[in-house]
């Protein structure tokens, strides 16, 4: 579920009114646990994404307040890194390696097959909410490509047929 960013009458107030209770609690807990570590922002963003599967955009002011950073700094970091997402993904995130070693054994064809089969482009989520498709640049499985990563499981030598099996398994695994 995504909600359009509301226009704020009081842009400097750190209130995060559009965070729901769980998002707010998760954000505050991550900040409380990690904010004294040196260079805490990335570990905090990871902790939030690990718990929620995304970092709500509306958490930015709250994180900024907790870490004594500007909202621009937090937003800058959150938007810089490809891994962090601000919207809830499908139940599973499927990443296809687009890098050269996988290209040399048919990654481009696999990409096309995946997009057609799932009916989405990169960053898209299937209509049933099961799978979000992402690109990834190397999974370190370069001798046994093409490779994909589904959540944190890596699969090698993935052709169209194996891709379909992986998708079917991912869908049936609730």
């Amino acid at each position, binding site marked *: 579920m995504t909600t359009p960013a509301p226009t704020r009458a009081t842009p400097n107030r750190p209130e995060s009114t559009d965070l729901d209770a769980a998002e707010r609690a998760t954000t505050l807990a991550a900040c409380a646990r990690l904010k004294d570590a*040196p*260079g*805490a*922002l*990335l*570990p905090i*963003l*990871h902790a939030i994404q690990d718990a929620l599967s995304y970092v709500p955009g509306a958490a930015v002011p709250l994180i900024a307040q907790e870490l004594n950073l500007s909202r621009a*700094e937090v937003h*800058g*970091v959150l938007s*810089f*890194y*490809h*891994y*962090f997402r601000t919207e809830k993904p499908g139940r599973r995130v499927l990443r296809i390696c687009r*890098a*050269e*070693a*996988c*290209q*040399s*054994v048919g990654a481009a064809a696999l990409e096309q097959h995946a997009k057609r089969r799932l009916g989405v482009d990169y960053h898209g989520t299937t209509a049933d909410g099961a799978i979000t498709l992402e690109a*990834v*640049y*190397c*999974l*370190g*499985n*370069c*001798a*046994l*490509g093409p*490779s994909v*990563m589904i959540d*944190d499981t*890596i*699969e*090698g*030598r993935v052709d169209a047929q194996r891709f379909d099996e992986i998708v079917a398994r991912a869908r049936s695994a609730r």
Partner: protein
Amino acid sequence: MSAASIVYVPADASAVAVGADAVAAAIHAEAARRGASVRIVRNGSRGLLWLEPLVEADTPAGRIAYGPVAPGDVPGLFDAGFLGGGTHRSCLGPTAQIAYLKNQERLTFARVGLTDPLDLEAYRAHGGFRGLDAALDLKPGEIVERVTASGLRGRGGAAFPAGIKWKTALDAAADRKYVVCNADEGDSGTFSDRMLMEGDPYALIEGMTIAGLATGATQGYIYLRFEYPHARRALERAIETAREHGYLGERLRGTDRRFDLEVRIGAGAYICGEETSLLESLEGKRGQVRFKPPLPAIRGLFGKPTVINNVITLASVPIILDRGAEYYRDFGLGRSRGTLPIQLTGNIRHGGLVEKAFGSTLRELLYDFGGGSRSGRPIRAVQVGGPLGAYLPESQFDTPIDYEAFAAIGGMLGHGGIVVFDDTVDMAAQARYAMEFCAIESCGKCTPCRIGSTRGVEVIDRLRAGEEPAKQEALLRDLCDTMIDGSLCALGGLTPYPVRSALNHFPEDFRKPAAARSRG
């Protein structure tokens, strides 16, 4: 009841990616069904990746290898008596006698694949922590001298002498210093860092601890990419175990020295493999490149002197301290001393990890070890050194694995990854991808990289479409020069290498067929 038979099934991510977990489960279930007493050890990978899942049985005659093994093969393996080394169609004979492994010179990877990577006693039994014990008896300057004398150069790609970097950090006075391990192995065609971290994590811990002793640093960070969840688990558990046994923390091995370690996870930014971007990221910022100077060894993480080295560089230090600088330096040639773990990847029949002294040729690696292409078609091009490395044609396959020899042909050895392409490759598409990748991963700090990469994609598109090709090619070459000369770091500065090499060696791919051109 007799002692349990020991069976090794790798837990390495690549082995698991082709079914090693299912094979281990099948062996477990089949042993239970037959009432056989079997202990399954999840070892690191031997690096013979095309044979994964590679199962080994520990027999009186040594370890016997079987591979690739599918779960369905397991009952047949039991029938064949594989626990005692019995004959089976997947039997490869004694593991140590397999030519691919036997013909390597494994120093850094000597232990990988032998044991359960988290078994501290096994690590010690195979020579682990001897380098650290040696370092604890030396003064910091003496450790640095040994690393310098070994000739070890940075294995991440830049090949800067490790000892000089350490000396700079040692000489920098500060209240706090850091050791940072660059484990952001983002180059396509490389996985040696991953294999080492999963297969011998204590070696990295030991190397980093020695770096701490050598420079006076007391805190280390391993900056690991999120794409490596197996390595993360291995490192975190290994750090915990090392700490429990006095190999990390306060009072190292009962001395008054201290060093501790933490794993930090990246977030999918290739640029964070560049050392100054990595430091920014560790500080919790956008991974944007810093200007140098100051060097990180003088003002690095949080403004303090910082040794930042790649995984393989740091994991090669223990053997140098243990066996001596001369021992390590005696491998290799010219200014490339020691060994390099080479990764044979992409369209290659026998893909895997080959650690060799510097000096073998690309051709030996591609054909003698690699066995040619996986597809069976002729090899047309190889890319060495990751996405910023040049594409090399067959005429350059006799180049020896040596930093200077590669520089001389406009290439680079980088982190030792070799990606193989057969004759179906479209080199213009590869050149375009190089620019596209740079555009996706540019940190945005400098203009030649941020804008140049996007313009590069456009120019290559026009060139491929046959729009005034001579003009486009001149423009593309000019753009490459600008990026090389004007970029702040290696991303923008080296992206032109794959582009130019593709253009130089495979110009025909940039010219569309006449029929298509006349339509366009």
